[in-house]
């Protein structure tokens, strides 16, 4: 007979904060890094230079069609076999960024495609330089378009970070396995970890909403209207 007993996880609570910090750090860094990868990838994909367009497209198709699990294995075990010994945390961060960066690229490219050509021409007729056009005309609009799908992607990254434990990263999933295997209270450990991921994903989502509102109310197009 299985008796549900959440207090059995109590003695593992002191190591939980460190695990939560690891998960938050890993997913937070991956979100930040994938934004830069996404912007670079989208600029490549929409570039006039054929080679750049090809590189951008190949990157997106390759990374979107390989499971994250395999990318983590490749970075951690594969590169080590070639002599490049990257720690579990860094390997997971690289793999998560590569994977999420591909989705970010497509998302931003979609946002860029929604901006009419006429706007570029109009901006150029006002003698704006390319960086100025992107900074003041294009990006504020792209930001509004991708704002909602970006939230989904952020949650996906937090949940995807759970795979990092397969290369020995001591995150919330690893904590869950430890509690389960040491206390034999697996059901409790699974439920606790599920609740923690729910809270973490929502925290990051609320941060996104807060930052988004602040940025939108301070964006140049909003103040100029």
């Amino acid at each position, binding site marked *: 007979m*299985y008796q*549900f007993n959440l207090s059995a996880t109590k003695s593992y609570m002191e190591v939980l904060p460190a695990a939560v910090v690891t998960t938050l750090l890993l997913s937070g860094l991956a979100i930040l890094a994938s934004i830069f990868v996404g912007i670079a990838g989208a600029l490549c994909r929409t570039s006039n230079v054929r080679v750049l367009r090809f590189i951008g497209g190949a990157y997106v198709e390759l990374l979107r069609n390989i499971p994250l699990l395999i990318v983590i294995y490749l970075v951690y075990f594969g590169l080590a*076999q070639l002599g490049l*010994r990257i720690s579990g945390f860094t390997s997971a961060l690289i793999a998560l960024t590569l994977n999420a960066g591909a989705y970010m690229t497509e998302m931003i490219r979609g946002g860029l495609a929604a901006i009419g050509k006429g706007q570029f021409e109009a901006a150029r007729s006002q003698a704006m330089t390319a960086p100025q056009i992107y900074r003041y005309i294009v990006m504020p609009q792209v930001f509004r378009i991708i704002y909602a799908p970006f939230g989904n992607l952020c949650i996906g990254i937090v949940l995807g970070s759970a795979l990092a434990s*397969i290369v020995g990263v001591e995150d919330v999933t690893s904590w869950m396995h430890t509690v*389960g*295997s040491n206390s034999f209270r*697996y059901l409790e450990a699974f439920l606790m970890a*599920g609740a923690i991921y729910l809270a973490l994903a929502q925290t990051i989502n609320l941060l996104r909403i807060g930052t988004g509102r602040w940025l939108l109310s301070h964006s140049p197009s909003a103040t100029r209207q």
Partner: protein
Amino acid sequence: MTLIVRKRTLALLAAGMLLGGLATHSASAQTAPSNIMADIVKRGTVRIATIAGNPPYSSVSPSGEPQGYDVEIGKLIAAALKVKPEWVIVDTPGRITALQTRRADITLANFTNTIERSTVIAFTRPYLIVGSSFMVKKDSPLQTAEQLNDPKYKVSGPRGGTFEPIAANTVPKATVLRFDTVQDALLALRSGQADANLGDSLQIAATISASNGAMRALPGNWSYEEIAVGLPAGDADWFRIMDAWVRQFNGSGDNARLFKKIFGFDMPPLQ
């Protein structure tokens, strides 16, 4: 704005209730009747939990069939009970959960009887005695386990097995890398992510003899482990049947012959 916040709170509440409901449901679902043998006869199969990626004890062949020493034992048990084996592939910690949640009738997976585990599940008498040892690459500078006791060295092993307490006792200062399967822990050593692998001494002996000199063991044995058949706790009849089977399996010499066939060397004595 308030409306949005309220909707979000409601959604979170609903998710929470769903998790809560799941918990109560599972708790009641696990109050199963205890006559395991009768269930096996009725079902026509004995459900055996084992792990993948742990050769030569148990692994899954490319065609999806379980194979290895523990798998052969499972087939013999099923034949003795006059039913068919039904394999439940689990991970290292899942060996206990499968029995606790009655997803399996026995666990056969290089499964050490420990006091902690004995408080929640039952074990038969052992069918194998193993130790644990450290394995390194042939060209490693490491010669003894004492040298390994340094934060600059990484030791790999599987999560949720007896590896963790043994590593904490023998090389407390070394950096410990924990993996989901024995196979991944071995891969960490092969790929160079780990400097040493701590594992079952017989498995390490088998890995070294298959490696054509690429691997070697550090001298010393660091544990005494009784490998036994795991059973759900609380069914004395089922324990009596399985323990009698193991006694016969050991005494008849069938065990020693099977071991030699799979591992390629003589089985160490059962003490």
